[in-house]
């Protein structure tokens, strides 16, 4: 490198930086003064930052700054504030009756919003994010309810669950007629076809309806009721409608009758607070299947 300052540009009479590209030299034009001053000011400003705010990482911790500021504490305060705002609203929800919540547009909107997020966190793994259900997991959008679809009944099911082990849980299960040796396999096939006929579905050729009716009356009526209309006290599904939790084809029915069914819905009491459970009941009810 040449000595910068001896290299003077002939046109402007100013010194150049000594850099040259293809015969073009760079003038050593100083930066505007305001720019330089702002630059130094930002440096001074940043030193202030080092002192005022936590800045330097030490081996075990870090410098805490003059006022002990920490962004984590800020977040904690904001979360607490949020909790407070929500707390008031959730208290209103907890105080209102289920029916009143549905009548008040503001409370309904709150319950639906709250219910939707809580549903997504807790219920979606089984019932699906839109509560459309899956085989063995009821669709909560339709109007077929094992344990009843009124607001109170939905609330009760969420609170205590089904076969959950909770003291107040819904009990009752489909027996394993085949596994337990109560019915022989040809009887099971016959009664399965009889059940299909109850729902207006096609039956196997040469199936003996009278025999089916007899087996049904002896074994199934106790729970599913006369004509197979179901019984919500025991969670026994209606066998005459178009909705089948475990499938309506013959094979699925044979499996159900032989193996029995006893799906478990956990109890949410104790895991979620009462106002949240209320919000969820309203949400599920408002999905459209509620009675």
């Amino acid at each position, binding site marked *: 490198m040449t000595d910068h300052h001896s290299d003077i540009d002939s*046109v*402007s009479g*100013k010194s150049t930086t000594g850099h040259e590209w293809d015969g073009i030299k760079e*003038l050593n*034009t100083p930066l505007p003064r305001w720019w330089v001053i702002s630059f130094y000011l930002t440096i001074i400003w940043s030193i202030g930052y080092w002192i005022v705010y936590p800045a330097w990482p030490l081996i075990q911790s870090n410098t805490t700054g003059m006022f002990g500021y920490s962004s984590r504490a800020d977040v904690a305060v904001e979360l607490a504030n949020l909790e407070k705002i929500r707390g008031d609203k959730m208290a209103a929800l907890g105080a209102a009756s289920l029916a009143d919540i*549905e*009548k008040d*547009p503001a409370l*309904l*909107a709150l319950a*639906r919003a709250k219910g939707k997020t809580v549903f997504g966190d807790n219920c979606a793994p089984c019932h*699906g*994010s*839109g509560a*459309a259900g899956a085989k063995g997991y009821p*669709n909560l*959008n*339709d*109007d*077929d309810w094992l344990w009843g679809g009124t607001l109170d009944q939905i609330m009760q099911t969420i609170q205590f669950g089904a076969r959950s082990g909770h003291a107040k849980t819904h009990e009752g299960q489909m027996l394993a007629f085949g596994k337990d040796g109560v019915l022989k396999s040809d009887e099971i096939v016959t009664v399965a076809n009889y059940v299909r006929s109850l729902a207006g579905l096609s039956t196997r050729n040469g199936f003996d309806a009278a025999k089916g009716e007899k087996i049904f009356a002896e074994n199934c009526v106790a729970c599913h009721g006369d004509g197979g209309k179901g019984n919500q006290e025991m969670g026994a599904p*209606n066998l005459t*409608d*178009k*909705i089948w939790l475990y499938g309506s084809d013959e094979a699925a029915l044979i499996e159900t009758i032989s193996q029995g069914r006893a799906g478990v819905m956990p109890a949410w009491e104790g895991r979620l607070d009462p106002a949240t459970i209320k919000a969820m009941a309203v949400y599920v009810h*408002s*999905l*459209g*299947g509620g009675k």
Partner: protein
Amino acid sequence: MNKTVNPKDLTLDDDNGPLYAAHKKVYPQSVSGTFRRIKWSLMAICLGVYYFLPFVRWNRGLGAPSQAVLIDLPNSRFYFFFIELWPQEVYYFTGLLIVAAVALFLMNSVGGRIWCGYLCPQTVWTDLFYAVERLIEGDRRERMKKDKSSDPLKLERISEIVLKHSIWLMIAWWTGGAWVLYFNDAPTLVKELVTFQGPMIAYIWIGILTASTYLLAGYMREQVCTYMCPWPRIQAALTDEWALNVTYRYDRGEKRTSVKKAAELRALGEQVGDCVDCYQCVAVCRTGIDIRNGPQMECIQCGLCIDACDNVMTKIGRPKRLIGYDNDINIHRRQEGKAPIYRIVRARTIVYSAIIAAIGGFMVYTLATRSLLDVNVLHDRNPVAVKLSDGSIRNAYTVRLLNKSGYDRAIAIDVEGPANPTMHVVGVDSVTPDRPIIVIPRDSTSELRLLVTAPAENNPEKSIPVRFHVMDIGLGVAASATDNFVAP
């Protein structure tokens, strides 16, 4: 006729120097005349509107804001006298911006940068700041002398400087203050602000605008117009040879001589130019240029040099408008002995005016006929359709109803699509199964969950279009939206 002057003979900038030039402070001289008067009046109108508009009241009935112009951010409403706009209608602002841009183009095709010279906020506030400066520190010569003087600062000078900056800051502060009044009820906010109970954000905005006004109008001045503003570059691309720009009529002005010499030469019957080289036009110029060097990017077309030169011409008994709004075409025509022609109405001004009229007209039309009732529909995605125990199919929709009127409305919802549908709005007990009725409070929206069920015997096989009609059962105002009814 004056002697023809080749523009190449005019004094030009020295292009051989370095590209970087240190800023030279401009000391514009006061001037009086037609254009100065126009500028004062426009300044009074612009500042008057800006500072006092928030205090104008407009009666919108109980519970609605009574401020004529209000940007209500928390409630997402914009009020402009009898107009009330919702967030869904931001396209009116898009339209307004397009009209404003084209209006700028139109001004430009008529008179170059006249927006810059007369109406631009930067010009208006800088002009105001200059007026304050002149009032306190005196006119051009005095200010130059005071700035140059190497005397130690005397008390008198210090008090002048302090006074000037205090007044500047007060104007700047008032400017920031007026800004925030557009976002809140002005009288209430003023009360809150002076008792230090206003919202933090208001103080922050006042601070920002005070600082920017003070810096831009007090220090940056013409540098904003020359270096920071993109408009001079854009307008250079938009202008054409017919635009009336502030022009030194060199055909009449050259050769420049002193008053005395001009008189002598004229007595001998010789040709002399009218310009007496008094530099008045340069002294008054806000951007510190010499307009006699021809059209320049820096010139903001403020016309003050016209006033300055007119005063000189009157004094020496020569015709006015040696500098005037003119274009090069006419200079050449005069040099050729032809009469000048002015063309304001030409293809581009017609096109710009037509665009403004079309968009403006369309906006006025839609505004006049806009519905005060609106409906949006969103289909449930998961599940898209539900089969009920009796075999019927149900679809769920989120329906948003907008009641933009100033009164509560009872709205009936009808659906057209599946045969014999039943409808249910969650949380609403319908009297009729296919026509729920809900009340939407004034000036608000309601989001509803609407279930439409098609009975088993009328199940559509595939997805069919549905149309939701909403109607104010009192007034019959209606709106509708379409979506689909999906079969599982």
